[in-house]
């Protein structure tokens, strides 16, 4: 069923067994799991079926680093940020779940084996084939894959979703559902609890035209993404002055986002066609991207984080900053997401015009490919001081806007530098070519951290831990100290690995749905 908030008489109380706030990939994945059950589900979404500027402006806030804007890196629309995403899917690694002595605050309360069944179930949600992320599970035809030294480097494989736009793909099913009600244009502004703050009693809903209602349910799930989930908890301070789930001042802390630095490039010493497994995307059994990353052994030996590098943008002349910028602008047009430093990129193209023109000419004339650029995506360390807090400014609904204060540390720069170095060692050893490193990676941390690309992977602000002193939610994604409030979001990630977060978000959402179904089956939906 589909309803719009404006159709509901103001002051109404909506009721459901389960209320899910946020209809992005997590919320929709969860709702779909309840399809056809005896449970009534209310799926609440702020946006509508089309992007609306006023609604989107509710996401405005302050990012103190200034390198991406909070209202441009996520989308307040049915389907959430799947409205614009690249479709890269990969599970976290086994080592990502482990506590690592050289990465402070690392370790999940669950293992990869706990999540693996849910990763498998999440695959169809993203229109992916079987759960196969090992390079040996794919047939690359006559293309070669490198026999890497496992003590240094390993293959990384992403499966590519079309990409699935959840708002389009799943609207029909939800509209037709008998037990799931989708409510659009309804903004959750406060989570109300009993006086002890141990149980949610209702959630306040409001729209931009002043209409108000609330919803009462047995269990509540906040599925508002890596930033908004924490914002809603912090803003719900009527009975808990520090906000819900925030007894230990953890909500909003440990913010993470994957830096995507231009890592350099490679030139091949063999015919590029031999290595097409690394730059072609379409194979008989599906669409993938194949890259490299430091092995778990190398991460430990070198004291670095997890990381990935992949070929990116073919080169016919030679790597140059102008072409790098031109490619970034081209990608921005393709993804409909502009980098904040558009002027800087245009200037770099103009400054390097001779190389840009030569490379462009060689592309137009289909000169042979001689190499590729390299793009990295690195894990960031979970750091308590990387946090979002409430600013003094309020949005149109009266909710405090977010202030995000964070930085990327030296360990992240070192991780990318050493990963590129490992790739150079292996390319040289195997006689495949040579690797160029982006020299910003060799400079001080300020220089490289000012030149990063971001793709809206917001994570970590309600981290998972079995200990309420070190985490906001427990292993079942239930907020510590609360009987009926859960989180389905990348905000629960204690660490983030290199993997794009969406597949893990889907897997965790399905796992949470199973947990809630189990509670409902046992008649203890609101007991946690």
């Amino acid at each position, binding site marked *: 069923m589909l309803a719009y908030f404006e159709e509901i008489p103001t002051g109404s109380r909506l009721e459901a067994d389960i209320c899910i706030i946020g209809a992005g990939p997590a919320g929709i994945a969860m709702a779909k799991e309840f399809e056809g059950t005896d449970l009534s589900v209310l799926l609440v979404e702020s946006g509508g079926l089309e992007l609306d500027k006023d609604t989107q402006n509710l996401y405005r806030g302050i990012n103190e680093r200034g390198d991406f804007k909070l209202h441009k890196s996520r989308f307040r629309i049915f389907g959430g940020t799947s409205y614009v995403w690249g479709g890269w899917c990969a599970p976290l690694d086994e080592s990502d779940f482990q506590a690592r002595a050289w990465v402070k605050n690392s370790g999940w309360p669950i293992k990869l084996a706990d999540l693996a069944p849910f990763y498998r179930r999440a695959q169809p949600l993203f229109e992916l084939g079987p759960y196969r992320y090992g390079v040996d599970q794919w047939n690359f035809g006559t293309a070669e894959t490198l026999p890497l030294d496992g003590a240094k480097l390993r293959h990384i494989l992403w499966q590519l979703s079309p990409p699935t736009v959840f708002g389009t793909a799943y609207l029909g099913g939800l509209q037709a559902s008998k037990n799931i009600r989708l409510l659009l244009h309804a903004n959750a502004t406060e989570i109300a609890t009993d006086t002890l703050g141990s149980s949610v009693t209702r959630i306040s809903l409001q729209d931009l035209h002043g209409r108000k209602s609330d919803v009462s349910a047995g269990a509540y799930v906040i599925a508002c993404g890596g930033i908004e989930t924490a914002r809603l908890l912090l803003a719900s301070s009527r009975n808990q002055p520090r906000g819900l789930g925030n007894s230990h001042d953890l909500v909003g802390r440990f913010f993470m986002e994957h830096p995507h630095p231009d890592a*350099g490039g490679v030139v091949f*010493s063999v015919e590029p066609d031999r290595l097409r497994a690394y730059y072609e995307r379409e194979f008989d059994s599906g669409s993938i991207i194949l890259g490299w990353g430091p092995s778990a052994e190398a991460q430990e030996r070198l004291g670095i984080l997890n990381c990935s590098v992949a070929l990116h943008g073919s080169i016919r002349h030679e790597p140059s900053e102008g072409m790098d910028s031109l490619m970034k602008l081209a990608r921005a047009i393709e993804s409909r997401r502009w980098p904040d430093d558009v002027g800087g990129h245009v200037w770099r193209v103009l400054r390097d015009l001779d*190389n840009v023109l030569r490379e462009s000419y060689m592309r137009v004339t289909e000169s042979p490919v*001689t190499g590729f650029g390299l793009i990295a995506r690195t894990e960031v360390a979970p750091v308590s001081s990387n946090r979002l807090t409430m600013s003094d400014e309020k949005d149109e609904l009266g909710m405090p806007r977010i202030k995000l204060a964070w930085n990327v540390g030296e360990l992240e720069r070192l991780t990318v530098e050493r990963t590129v170095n490992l790739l150079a060692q292996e390319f*040289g*050893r195997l006689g495949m070519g*040579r690797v*160029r490193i982006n*020299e910003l990676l060799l400079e001080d941390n300020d220089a490289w951290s000012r030149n990063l690309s971001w793709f809206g992977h917001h994570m970590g602000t309600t981290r998972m831990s079995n200990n309420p002193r070190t985490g906001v939610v427990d292993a079942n994604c239930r907020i510590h100290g609360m009987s009926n409030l859960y989180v389905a979001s990348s905000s629960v990630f204690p660490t983030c690995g290199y993997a794009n977060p969406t597949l893990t978000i889907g897997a965790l959402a399905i796992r949470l749905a199973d947990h809630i179904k189990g509670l409902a089956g046992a008649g203890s939906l609101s007991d946690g």
Partner: protein
Amino acid sequence: MKISKNKGAIFSRRWFLIGVPSMVGALLFGLRSTDHQYELADCLRDFFKSNLDASVLMGRKYLEKVPEEGSAAWLVDRVFGGEGLIMSDRFPLLNAQVLRLRQQDFVRGDLIVIDGWLVARTEARLCALAAICSTG
């Protein structure tokens, strides 16, 4: 010897893809002919034309980074393992020796960054040798 002023020229011809093994041969050829550095450089230029320019440029950049290795005798000793260089019948052996050292560098991770390129230490030393010879 004319050296390209274009910083980006080093790899524009994919120098390393063909340059280093040939360079070994060139050096050996030159050293066989004479131990006079000017004549060696002349010989190298004849052999490699533009690739030699790039090699020399890279060698100079290496020596800027590691000035303590600016001795031809020391470099010859490190790159060729102190083997007698003048004997033409030893060329294949020496060539194999350089390639072995280069492989060892990659396995051990003994790489150095020159103009952004991560190259094996032995490759860089070969270039340094070419740079020293070219200024003779």
